[in-house]
Every structure is written in structure tokens, then in C-alpha cells.
């Protein structure tokens, strides 16, 4: 009995202190790895509004709304599972997964919300937006700013 207790004590005392006073000090060994899947970020400039991300998202948190020539993508990240599928399928690399994982907040709707507005071509007949083939085409559509 005492031998096993001694062995346990040896295991315990071998490592002494391993914890950190976390928010004040971080463990340098445990920082996020380079391809960590943290909170996603969307680069509106790169987005072409193809909505492929909305299509694959398992938790259906990307809501696409069209108003005239503007396509708006809303990311309600409070439901995000950080699977990174959106980043994976994005053809333009507009969505990237950052290393940010400390996303606890008490203002969920403000802090955990991303949105991107993309100017798209508007169909002359039906008035809906459509994807332009190239960036150049998009810049030539009426109403495109900058």
C-alpha cells in the first residue's frame, strides 16, 4: 500500500507545477497551431457571392439575402462548429480560419456576427442578382462602387 502511494507521490512531484494563471499568462507551448480552425474571417473584397459556403455549412449559419444588386452574406457565428468547410470550398479564398479561439462574449449578436456585402450584376429581366464571371465584369456593372 505504502509503495503504491509512494509511486503516486513520485508521479505527482515529478512535474511540480504545470498550470498557468491562464488569462494573465499563457502556456507558450499551447498556442494555436498554424492551421488551427478558429473563428472564421471573411474578406469581402475577395468574395464573389457564389454562396458555396452557405451550401456546405453543416449548421446553416450563413444566410444569403439579395437586395437589388447587393448580395449580403450574414455569418451567425454563435452556431458555428468551426469545421472549416466554408474556407475549404471557397473558390477565391475569401474565407479564412483564424487562430482566434477566445470567443466567449455576452453580446453574442454583435460579437459573433460577420457580414459581407457584395455587389453583383442584376438581371435585367427578373431583377435578381447573378454572379458575374470575372471581377472585371463585376466592376463594369452599374452601381458598383470603387
Amino acid at each position, binding site marked *: 500500500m505504502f509503495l503504491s*502511494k509512494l509511486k*503516486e*507521490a513520485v508521479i*505527482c*512531484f515529478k*512535474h*511540480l*507545477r*504545470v*498550470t*498557468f*494563471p491562464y488569462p494573465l499568462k499563457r502556456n507558450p507551448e499551447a498556442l494555436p497551431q498554424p492551421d488551427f480552425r478558429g473563428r472564421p474571417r471573411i474578406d469581402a473584397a475577395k468574395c464573389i457571392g457564389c454562396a458555396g459556403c452557405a451550401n456546405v455549412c453543416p449548421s446553416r449559419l450563413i444566410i444569403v439575402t439579395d437586395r437589388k444588386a447587393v448580395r449580403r452574406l450574414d455569418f451567425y457565428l454563435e452556431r458555428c462548429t468551426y469545421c472549416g468547410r466554408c474556407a475549404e470550398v471557397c473558390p477565391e479564398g475569401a474565407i479564412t480560419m483564424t487562430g482566434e479561439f477566445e470567443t466567449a462574449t455576452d453580446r453574442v449578436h454583435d460579437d459573433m456576427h460577420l457580414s459581407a456585402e457584395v455587389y453583383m450584376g442584376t438581371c435585367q429581366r427578373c431583377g435578381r442578382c447573378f454572379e458575374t464571371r470575372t471581377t472585371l465584369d463585376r466592376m463594369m456593372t452599374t452601381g458598383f462602387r470603387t
Partner: protein
Amino acid sequence: MFRIVATIGILLFLSPLIEGILRKFKALVHSRIGPPLLQPYWDILKLLGKDDVRSPHSLLGPLPAWLSLAALLAAGLLVPLGTTAAIAGGDLFLFLYLVGFASVCTMLAGMDSGSPYAFLGMGREMMTSFVVEPVLFIALITAALKSHSFRFADMAFFQQVSGTSVSMIISGAALLLALQAQLSKLPFDIPEAEGELMGGVFAEMSGPTFAMYRWGFIVKQVVFALILTQIFFPWPLGLTGAWAVAAQVVKVLLVAVLVGLVDAVNPRLRIDQAIGYYFGVILMALVGLVFALVGA
């Protein structure tokens, strides 16, 4: 009068520090930082300021809480601190009953709330004391028989004067084994058992009322450590003045660390196993008593 006030002050205001050291040591075994050294003080202060949550079935209210702290402090007055006890007029039976009264207060307060967890915790607390109190009183009676006195001051004097004796060491060892349960530390913190009983008798307590019991526990810890070190392990013998006080502080810390170590490397036992174990310890204490009777 000064001695009385000083003893009360030391018991109330220095004992949380011992608890802090104990917790820090336990954290070391756990490989974690652990709470700050002064955390027990903050705990008590925080509890004193919180709402006093009361059960709607309560009859006694916070009365047992005051009485239990008062009884433990009164018991502390009988125990030699430094070289003599603050009050000379009391003996070990008074001490036993005062400590018993304090734990009865917690049990009554638990049952007063009407919570089933408290009732289970009360049952466990009582059953633990059925087997732990005998160890305590047999050990103390051994010391009393050896020193021909029922007063702690005389018992503490005995080994100083007439040297080490076998019976005292056996009784001291038995008392050390019982200490774990007296102080509600693992493996014998069965009455509280946060895991299955959510604190047992304290399940419905919070705020200043709970602070009284917590404080009482901390005081009890020091009182028992003092008894153990003063009466049964008074080495090194022959110290005087500041040295004696220093040795006493070191010994109390040692006891705290030992209790913390045993606490850290054991799981909580079941009540029937604890009872079985303490029957063995009672037997050991009785052996000490027999040794005392034959004069060893």
C-alpha cells in the same frame, strides 16, 4: 484575560493561514498553482457578505452556527497554546463534550433545513463520530492516566518532565490516524462528500451562517493539531520561550502538511469501510491504554 483574548485572536485569525498553507500544498501535489495563501480569509469574508439563504422549514435559524463556533473556541481555550492553556479550569471531558456539541450543532442545523442530503450527511457525520470520538477519548485518557490529571496543561507537561513513553506514542499515532476524520479530510470526508451529497449537512447553507461553520472547521483543525503536538509529540523537549513557540508553529505546520498529503493521495472511503477501519484504530488506541496501565 489577556491570554484568553490572545488565544481567541490566534485561533480565529491565524488558523486560516494554516488552511491556506494546506491548500497550497495540496495544489502542489496536484501539479497546479492553487489558490493564494490568503484565500481562506477571502472565502470567509466573501461568505460573510453574501445573502443568508434559509430553508422555509427552518426552526433554529442561524443559532446553531453561532453556538458551534462559540463551542469550538471555548474548547480551544482549554488547549495549551504556547506553554499553558488560556483557562486552567476545565478538563478533557469538558473539551470532548464541547467539541461534540459543536458537531451536534452542525447536524441539527442540517436536519433543520429538511434536505434529504443533509439527513444523509448527518447520519454519516454521526456514524463517523461513533468510531472517531472513541479514538480521541481513549488517546486522551491514556495521556490522563499517564500524567495523573485530566487537565490538558498537566498532560502536556508529562512527557516534558518524565520523558517519552510507549503508550503515549501509540496513542499519538492513533490520534493522528483519527485526525483525518476529525478534520473532515480525505479519505474520511464522508459526511460532506461533495460528489454524492453536495456538502451533506451544509447542502442548504450559504452566506454568513456557512462562514461560521467553515471558520469553526478551520479553528478545529488548529486545536486538534495543537493537542497532538503538545501532548503526544512534544519533542524537542526542554525548549523555552520563543523557541518553544517556534517549534510549536513548525509542528502544527508539519501536521497540516501531513494531513494534506494523506488527503491528496487517497480516495474517499465508504462509510462502512471507514467504520471498519476505525474499529482497528480504536483497538490500537486501546493497546496504548493497556501499555499505560502496565506502566510503559
